[in-house]
């Protein structure tokens, strides 16, 4: 019982981290770029959402499978193909949850306007410096929302994980699948316990994140 929990935390934590690392610059580019095609990229980022997760998982399976070019590439990098590995799970979750991070963060960057960045530039902050020391702190509520949505969604993520993870105990059998397993195998008591535990835990994590964000804002 403890194994899926740890695995889930590891997956959600890592996925959220990667989502923030990838999603934030992407959101920044979407917020700032003047390119005419940027909205197309914006729409593409949101697309994984419209496919049912299992179907998305199916396509990821095909795309990353050992017979595909991407799969071949992965094999030469990781030594194994991505599906049915933890790495594959992380990749799938990242793709699936990306829009939940990109959209709120992008909005936060856009709401901020140019002014603080102009002030930073006149104080000799390079664009990178401004990004880290002005834009990111100012976008904190958006980043937090992105992180909460991304984290929660990865914890509850299931279709993609089931499809490309393959429900392998200790490797890709995360909590959501474990609960699903219990439900499907008529072990409802275990399912109830796990679900309740998961809800309480997530409630606490989210509440703590939100309250601490609020306190940071209040401290001013």
């Amino acid at each position: 019982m403890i194994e899926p929990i740890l695995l889930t935390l590891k997956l959600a934590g890592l996925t959220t981290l990667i989502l923030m690392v990838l999603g934030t610059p992407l959101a920044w580019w979407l917020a700032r770029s003047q390119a005419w095609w940027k909205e197309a990229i914006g729409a593409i980022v949101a697309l994984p959402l419209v496919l049912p997760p299992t179907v998305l998982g199916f396509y990821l399976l095909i795309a990353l499978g050992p017979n595909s070019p991407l799969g071949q590439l992965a094999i030469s990098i990781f030594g194994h193909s991505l599906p049915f590995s933890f790495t594959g799970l992380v990749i799938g979750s990242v793709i699936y949850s990306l829009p939940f991070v990109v959209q709120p963060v992008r909005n936060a960057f856009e709401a901020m306007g140019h002014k603080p960045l102009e002030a930073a530039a006149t104080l000799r902050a390079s664009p990178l410096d401004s990004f880290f020391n002005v834009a990111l702190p100012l976008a904190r509520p958006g980043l937090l929302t992105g992180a909460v949505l991304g984290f929660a969604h990865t914890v509850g993520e299931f279709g993609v994980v089931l499809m490309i993870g393959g429900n392998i105990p200790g490797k890709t059998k995360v909590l959501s699948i474990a609960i699903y397993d219990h439900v499907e195998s008529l072990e409802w008591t275990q399912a109830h316990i796990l679900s309740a535990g998961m809800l309480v835990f997530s409630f606490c994590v989210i509440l703590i994140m939100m309250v601490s964000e609020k306190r940071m804002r209040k401290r001013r």
Partner: protein
Amino acid sequence: QAVHVAVAANFSVPLKEIAQAFQVKTGHEALVSVGSTGKLYTQIANGAPFDVFLAADQKRPRLAEEKGLAVMGSRFTYAMGKLALYPASSPDVLTQGDLVRLAVANPKTAPYGQAAVETLQSLKLYVPLKDKLVYGENIAQTYQFVATQNVDVGFVALSQVVDKPDKWIVPAHYYQPIAQDCVLVKDSPAARAFVDFLKGETARAIITRYGYGG
């Protein structure tokens, strides 16, 4: 050495028991991955690390053999699924006027669903009841519809209600037999040992106890 077994959802409970017995006897660990037959097949086609595939039908294992995804000639029927109507003591509930909804598994993806439809057709009830059907993704979900009392009655696997008194076991001639096949995906001594164990007495007893035909 570990054997990786992929099993169709309806057989997951008996299999877990079998796996335990298998480990006690041979010392090999059996890792169980549960999924729907269709999904498991797709995964095997895309390099899933399964050694043994226990499907809910015969089609997918055969396909796996044909496409070279499994060891040729290793296929065999490990269980015969039986259909039950639950909660009901006879098919009469199906003709009662206050029947609102009847749950079956999706006939397109689940063999038990196909069997349920065939049963209804045999009873000449399919057309009159068509609008009352709701479909579970698989047989487990179908059971959940019934168990949560959202439907009045449903066609489920006998294995799911084997210890429940108020069921009507559908006579075998009402539907095509649900032969569930097993196939060896990757050849290894441990996997062979598992397949052999599945064919053996201990496993057979468990399978029968869960309401499958041999």
